[in-house]
């Protein structure tokens, strides 16, 4: 496979459950890198903690497996010291928006050139299926056996408000969009967020009676629609997919270069 050269094959088969969407995200992300023709040395992948964060162990780039929620903080450090490198930060929904919520909004506000991939399975899978800020109301989890009453964040709206300059959303069913969006996000100069709805059949699916991984992917097909589609007007409950924001704004490490120049001028 074209993407095998980017894998640390000695760690396969991977630890994710059968049908876990995270493998599909890994698959799509490697295709994006392959299409960009980037070498392994040009990419730094930084991850935090969780099922999603294990992704950095499987790729043969420069990788950092850091602490819960703090992947973006580590990535900011790498980017500031080596701005020529491409930073990719895959995070789970809890890692990105609960534990790492603060780092997330401030990285977006600074518009630092990092690609944040939010692998949204709406649950803490690794620790046994606790509800997350992306679970939403009426979701059953081990810590919400009678259903959660917490409303969920909308990753796209949150990123938009915080100042991200590239924001896209897709699902594991729509595989061709995964590599297309990640490719564009890596090329984008500034903070790029790609939210990917990814199934957790073991915890989310089982507790919420959504069936197998296949059934959950069919659900993604049925409950999402392209941005601005007619179907969305008829059924406002559908989740939109596509690129929501793509704009140019001053990038943080470039702005910092100007400060370095100003400070070191004779």
């Amino acid at each position, binding site marked *: 496979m074209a993407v095998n050269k980017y894998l640390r094959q000695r760690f396969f088969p991977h630890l994710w459950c059968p049908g876990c969407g995270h*493998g599909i995200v890994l698959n799509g992300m490697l295709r994006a890198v392959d299409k960009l023709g980037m070498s392994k040395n040009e990419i730094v992948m930084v991850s935090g903690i969780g099922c999603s964060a294990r992704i950095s162990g499987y790729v043969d780039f420069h990788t950092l497996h850091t602490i819960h929620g703090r992947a973006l903080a580590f990535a900011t450090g790498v980017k500031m010291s080596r701005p020529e490198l491409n930073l990719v930060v895959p995070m789970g929904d809890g890692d990105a928006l609960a534990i790492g919520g603060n780092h997330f909004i401030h990285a977006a506000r600074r518009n630092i050139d990092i690609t944040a991939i939010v692998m949204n399975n709406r649950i803490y899978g690794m620790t046994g299926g606790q509800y997350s800020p992306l679970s939403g109301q009426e979701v059953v989890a081990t810590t919400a056996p009678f259903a959660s009453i917490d409303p969920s964040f909308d990753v796209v709206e949150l990123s938009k408000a915080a100042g991200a300059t590239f924001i896209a959303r897709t699902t594991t069913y729509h595989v061709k969009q995964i590599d297309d969006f990640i490719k564009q996000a890596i090329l984008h100069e500034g903070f790029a967020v790609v939210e990917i709805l990814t199934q957790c059949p073991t915890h989310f699916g089982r507790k919420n009676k959504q069936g197998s991984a296949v059934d959950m992917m069919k659900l993604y097909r049925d409950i999402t629609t392209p941005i601005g589609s007619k179907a969305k007007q008829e059924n406002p409950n559908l989740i939109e997919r596509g690129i929501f924001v793509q704009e140019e704004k001053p990038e943080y490490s470039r702005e910092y270069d100007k400060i370095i120049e100003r400070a070191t001028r004779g």
Partner: protein
Amino acid sequence: MAKPILKSHRIKADWCKGCGICVEFCPKKVLELDESDRAVAARLQDCICCRLCELRCPDLAIEVETE
């Protein structure tokens, strides 16, 4: 564009976890799960090289090669 011709369809049995995603979403129903719940290409003559099995495989176990 000319129709792609299948050269090989390989499934790494030791990476496959038998989730059945490739089987379900193959538009030509080429794949099925064998008795040990591993994906196998049972009707390879029907394959149209769309690569959807390769793209959707969460275990990165499938490789479709065309001429």
